[in-house]
C-alpha cells in the first residue's frame, strides 16, 4: 500500500475536499471574504467530475439553488460569511421545515454588517442557532484545525442526510486561512451516509409519514413519487394545513427527530482534563489558543484542562456538565461578548465559577491572555 501522503492545506481547501469525500455533487455559491476559496476550489473540482457548480447572483439565490438541487437528489453545499449568512436565513428555515438535507459553511468574520471583513470573529454563534424566524432545531459544527475542517464537513453531510435537515459548519477566518499539515484518509476509510429512500411503491407512498425514526423517506424529484414540497406547515401528504391536530404533531416530529439523538450529536474533545481543577471551554480558533494555554499552564504547575466544543448546537450539555463537575473554575474565551459562556452558565449547577473572556478587536485571543485571566481569578 502506498504511504499516506501528507499535504499542506488551508482550512477552506480542507472543507472543499471534505465535501467531495462526503459525496458532495452540487455546489452553488457567491463570492465573499473569507469564504471565497471554498467556492473557487469547487469551481475547479465540480465540473471535472461532471457535477453542477454555479455562482449565483447573491446568497439568497445560492441557498435556494442548493435546496432545489437537494430536492432533486444531490448532496449540496454552499459557503459564505456573515453578511451572506444573514441573507440565507429565510431559506435556511425553509430547508428546516421542508426537511431538505443541506450543508451551509459560514466562515465567521467581524460583524455586524460589513464589520471587519478580513478579521476573525466568533459573533455568529447565536445567529447560527436562532437566525431564521420561527422556533426550529439546529445543528451547528465548529472546527478548530484544518484536519477538523475536513472531518466535520464529512460529519455535516452525514448528519444533513441522516436527519434531513440543514447543518451549518461554523468556521472562522483564522481556521479558514491557516495552513497545516494533514494526512487525509483514503476514500474507503470515510464513512458516508446517504438519505433514506422510499421503501414503498409510489401508489402507497405518503411522503411525510414516518416510522420510529421520525425522519421522512422523501423521494428525490423526478423519480416517480410525485408529492408536494412546501414551506407551509403541512400534513403527512405534504399539503398545507392549519388544523391544530396536524400542526402540533408536525412540530413535535420536527424537533423530535433531532432531540432524540442529542447524545449522538455531542462532539467534544477533552485535553488534560483528568486531574484538572480549572477548565477552559473553547471552540474554533480560540480553542487553539486555549490548547497552548493549557500546555504552558501545565509547565507552570497549573492544573488546567481544555474542553473543545466541536458541536455547539444542539449545545453539548451533558459533556459540558461533566467537564464542570468538581472544577473550581471554568473560563470561556471567545471572540464575542459571551455567546457561549452564557450557555455554559446556563448548564452550570452553581458549584463552579464560570468566567467569560470576550474579545472584539479583530484579533485572536492569545494563550497569555487566557493564562492572565486564569491568574486573576485564582
Amino acid at each position, binding site marked *: 500500500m502506498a504511504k499516506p501522503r501528507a499535504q499542506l492545506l488551508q482550512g477552506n481547501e480542507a472543507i472543499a475536499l471534505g465535501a467531495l469525500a462526503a459525496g458532495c455533487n452540487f455546489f452553488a455559491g457567491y463570492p465573499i471574504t473569507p469564504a471565497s476559496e471554498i467556492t473557487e*476550489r469547487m469551481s475547479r473540482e465540480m465540473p471535472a467530475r461532471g457535477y453542477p457548480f454555479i455562482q449565483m447572483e447573491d446568497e439568497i439565490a445560492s441557498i435556494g439553488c442548493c435546496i*432545489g438541487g437537494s430536492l432533486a437528489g444531490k448532496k449540496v453545499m454552499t459557503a459564505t460569511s456573515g453578511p451572506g449568512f444573514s441573507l440565507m436565513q429565510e431559506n435556511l428555515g425553509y430547508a428546516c421545515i421542508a426537511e431538505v438535507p443541506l450543508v451551509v459553511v459560514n466562515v465567521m468574520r467581524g460583524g455586524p454588517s460589513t464589520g471587519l471583513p478580513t478579521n476573525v470573529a466568533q459573533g455568529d454563534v447565536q445567529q447560527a442557532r436562532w437566525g431564521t424566524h420561527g422556533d426550529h432545531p439546529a445543528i451547528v459544527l465548529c472546527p478548530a484545525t484544518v484536519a477538523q475542517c475536513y472531518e466535520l464537513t464529512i460529519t455535516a453531510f452525514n448528519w444533513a442526510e441522516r436527519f434531513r435537515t440543514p447543518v451549518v459548519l461554523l468556521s472562522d477566518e483564522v481556521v479558514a486561512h491557516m495552513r497545516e499539515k494533514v494526512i487525509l484518509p483514503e476514500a474507503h476509510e470515510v464513512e458516508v451516509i446517504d438519505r433514506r429512500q422510499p421503501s414503498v411503491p409510489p401508489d402507497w407512498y405518503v411522503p411525510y409519514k414516518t416510522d420510529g425514526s421520525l425522519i421522512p423517506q422523501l423521494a428525490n424529484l423526478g423519480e416517480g413519487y410525485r408529492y408536494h414540497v412546501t414551506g407551509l406547515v403541512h400534513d403527512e401528504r405534504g399539503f398545507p394545513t392549519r388544523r391544530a391536530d396536524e400542526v402540533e404533531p408536525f412540530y413535535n416530529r420536527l424537533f423530535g427527530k433531532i432531540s432524540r439523538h442529542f447524545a449522538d450529536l455531542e462532539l467534544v474533545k477533552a485535553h488534560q482534563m483528568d486531574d484538572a481543577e480549572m477548565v477552559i471551554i473553547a471552540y474554533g480558533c480560540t480553542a487553539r489558543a486555549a490548547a497552548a494555554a493549557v500546555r504552558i499552564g501545565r509547565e507552570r504547575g497549573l492544573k488546567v484542562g481544555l474542553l473543545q466544543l466541536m458541536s455547539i448546537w444542539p449545545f453539548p450539555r451533558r459533556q459540558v456538565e461533566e467537564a464542570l463537575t468538581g472544577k473550581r473554575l471554568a473560563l470561556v474565551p471567545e471572540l464575542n461578548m459571551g455567546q457561549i459562556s452564557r450557555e455554559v452558565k446556563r448548564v452550570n449547577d452553581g458549584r463552579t465559577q464560570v468566567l467569560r473572556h470576550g474579545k472584539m478587536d479583530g484579533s485572536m485571543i492569545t494563550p497569555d491572555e487566557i493564562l492572565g485571566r486564569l491568574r486573576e481569578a485564582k
Partner: protein
Amino acid sequence: MPPVHRSVVYDWLRHDKKFPHVWCPGCGLGILLGSLLRSLVESGLDKNQVVLVSGIGCSGRLPVYVDVNSVHTTHGRALTFATGIKLAKPELTVITVMGDGDATAIGGNHLIHAARRNLDITAIIVNNQTYGMTGGQYSPTTPLGAKATTAPYGHIEPSFDISALSATAGASFVARSTVYHITQLDQLLGQAIAKPGFGVVEVLSPCHTNFGRQNRLGSQVDMMKEFKRKGMRVERWRELPEGKRAENIPLGVLVDRDLPVFGQSYQRICDTAGKRGEAGK
C-alpha cells in the same frame, strides 16, 4: 391542434388535495391552471418528469393542485430553486409560476439573472398589477395613478413591462397573453415549454377583489372585457402608428430566438475539465 378532452385535464389534477381551491370566485388563476394543464397534456410530457415551482402569493398556490412534482418555495425565490432542480436533473421539465410582485419586486434580481443565464426553464408570470393575497398593495406593475392600499393617494412610480424586461435581460422566448385569450394562452405555454432556454410567458389576469375594487374597474367580467378590448396580436400592434400603441396591449410571441443555453455550455466546461484529469492539481 386536436381538442383535449376534459377528462385528460382532470387526470392531471390532484384528487387527494381537497378542492375548492383558495382563489376568489372569478380569479384568473383557475383559467391559467386549466390552460397550463392543457398545454402540458398537449406537450406529451410524463407527469413524473414535470416539476412545477412557485413562490408566494395567490399564484404560489397553483402547483399544489397539479399531480406532478410540485415545490412551493419562499417569496421571490422560485427561480433559484428551479435553477437548482434543473442543474441537478437536466432531463426534467421545470416550470415556475410567479406573480408580478413575486417575480419582479422581491424576485426581480433572480428573474433578470435567470433570463441572462438562459437555463432551460419556463417562467409563467401572472400579472394582476397588485399584491392580491395581502390585500391590494402596489406592485412594480401597478399603473401610475392607480389606487392601492399602500397608495391611497394614487401610485407615483412608473411600472415595469415584464416582457420587455425579460427580453432585455436575455430570455430566449418571451410571450404575453391574458386569461381572456385562452386558446392563444394554451399555445404560448406549449411553445414556451418546448423552447430550449429561458422562456417567459406574461399572463395578464384580473384581480377584481383587491385591485379592481379599489380602482372602480367593475366586476371580474368587466375587467375581462378590458382584456378583450385592448388585447391585440403583436404583429398587428407593430403596424399601429406610434401614438395608437399605448392604448392597446400587444399579445403573442414577442421574442423567439436561439441563444446559447446554460446546460449545453456547462456540459462543454465539464468535458474540458474532465479531460484535464484530476482537478485542482
